[in-house]
């Protein structure tokens, strides 16, 4: 089952295309990182998935073909928007009460227990809580709905490293315990290496790279060798840093390729961060044709 499926999904605000011809088929059970620079279209994609925005063109469905924004979709998806939206004058107990009354399904018992485990004073106003506690409270309200898909927009952007770790640990624990899928956006690449196992890379409103992280890492390679050395026709060169003597390449190896790397080239595996950076750079260099980039 695909938790998110889009076909030629496009969203325009006036004349500006925030998202253009986005086609994705994301299977369930992953933590999907939607990555890209600010203004790339990450939030637009998330808003379309949760049904907060309607597409200008194309289609988007969730959880095995349910139209985004439909009642069935809303019941099964929990969304935490950027900046952890909470009523600052309401306490944790008030927020639980409010959220229960705004939703068809809400596990009050779970929410109370979790607030207790986290050591959040139930009567303290949300505005007086620490950033980490506010984030955990917002996450608790989302998880108490027992969603099948959890959508988080830049969830850790404002958190210190410890709160960030605890927040992601809580998200991962929900994944391990309840088998939920998670879709989150971020522009911090480094912290995704350990958590994301599916990547959607967006820049300028277009998907540049997407897939299971392990597969993406597996079909790319960092190579170092003499500049004059012949290059394998099975390589698609994503990044080329060459001097007169030496070349550092990041290549995608054609799926049909059956032979190893020629002697003279030294190959190393690429990290998720290096891979994402190279693709983001590739799309900003003028000589690259976009047709070759879109997968």
């Amino acid at each position, binding site marked *: 089952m695909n938790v998110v499926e889009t076909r030629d999904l496009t969203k325009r605000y006036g004349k500006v295309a925030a998202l253009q011809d986005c086609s994705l088929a994301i299977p369930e*059970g*992953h*933590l999907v990182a939607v990555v890209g620079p600010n203004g790339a279209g990450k939030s637009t994609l998330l808003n379309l998935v949760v049904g907060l925005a309607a597409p200008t063109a194309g289609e988007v469905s969730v959880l095995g073909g349910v139209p985004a924004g439909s009642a069935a979709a809303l019941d099964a998806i929990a969304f935490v928007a950027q900046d952890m939206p909470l009523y600052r004058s309401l306490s944790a107990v008030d927020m639980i009460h409010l959220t229960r009354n705004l939703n068809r399904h809400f596990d009050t018992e779970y929410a109370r227990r979790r607030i207790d*485990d*986290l050591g959040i004073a139930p009567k303290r106003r949300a505005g007086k809580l620490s950033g980490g506690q506010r984030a955990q409270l917002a996450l608790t309200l989302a998880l108490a709905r027992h969603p099948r898909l959890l959508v988080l927009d830049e969830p850790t952007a404002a958190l210190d490293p410890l709160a960030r*770790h*605890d927040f*992601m*640990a*809580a998200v*991962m*624990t929900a*994944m*391990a*315990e309840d088998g939920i899928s998670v879709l989150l956006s971020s522009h911090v690449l480094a912290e995704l*290496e*350990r*958590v*994301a*196992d599916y990547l959607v890379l967006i820049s300028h409103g277009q998907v540049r790279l997407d897939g299971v992280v*392990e*597969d993406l890492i*597996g*079909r790319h*390679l960092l190579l170092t060798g003499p500049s004059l050395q012949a290059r394998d026709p*099975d390589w698609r060169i994503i990044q080329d840093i060459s001097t007169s003597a030496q070349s550092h390449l990041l290549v995608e*190896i*054609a*799926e*049909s*390729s*059956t*032979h*190893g*790397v020629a002697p003279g080239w*030294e*190959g190393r*595996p690429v*990290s998720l961060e290096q891979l994402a950076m190279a693709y983001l750079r590739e799309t900003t260099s003028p000589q690259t044709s976009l047709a070759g980039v879109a997968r």
Partner: protein
Amino acid sequence: MGIDKQGIDRSPIVFTLDPASGVPTYLQLVHQVEHALRLGYLKQGDQLPKVREVVADLAINPNTVLKAYRDLESKGLTAGRPGQGTFIEGALDQIDLAGVAGLRKSLLGWLTQAEDSGLDSDGIVALFSSTLRDFTERRTTGDAGGKARARRAGGAA
């Protein structure tokens, strides 16, 4: 999140991660289990940390932990018991002392030869690591049953 550190059924080991090592997270977990087996921290019948415990401790993707545990199971080192967890099943092949001594002797001979040809110790380490890398990669790509490390072949699943 409150995990009972005094729990009776808690694993004898706990995982840590080295983000700077460049070793994939799942492999770090595999290596730590193998290391603990070699050093006797883990014995037959011992339980590995539960997936949700590892996830809560390290804030890593549960699929990464599952992958490491599958890897250990396919090596015959562990077995999953449904509803209970993953337990140590096998032991690592230990090489006896005489074997180590023999290997050490031939390595010393090779090192003398390398030094005589003008390699310093940095050069020796570089040559050894690149040869070892080629050797293991050739073996993994040659072995059809070996992991989905089709990196060199490019035909990732």
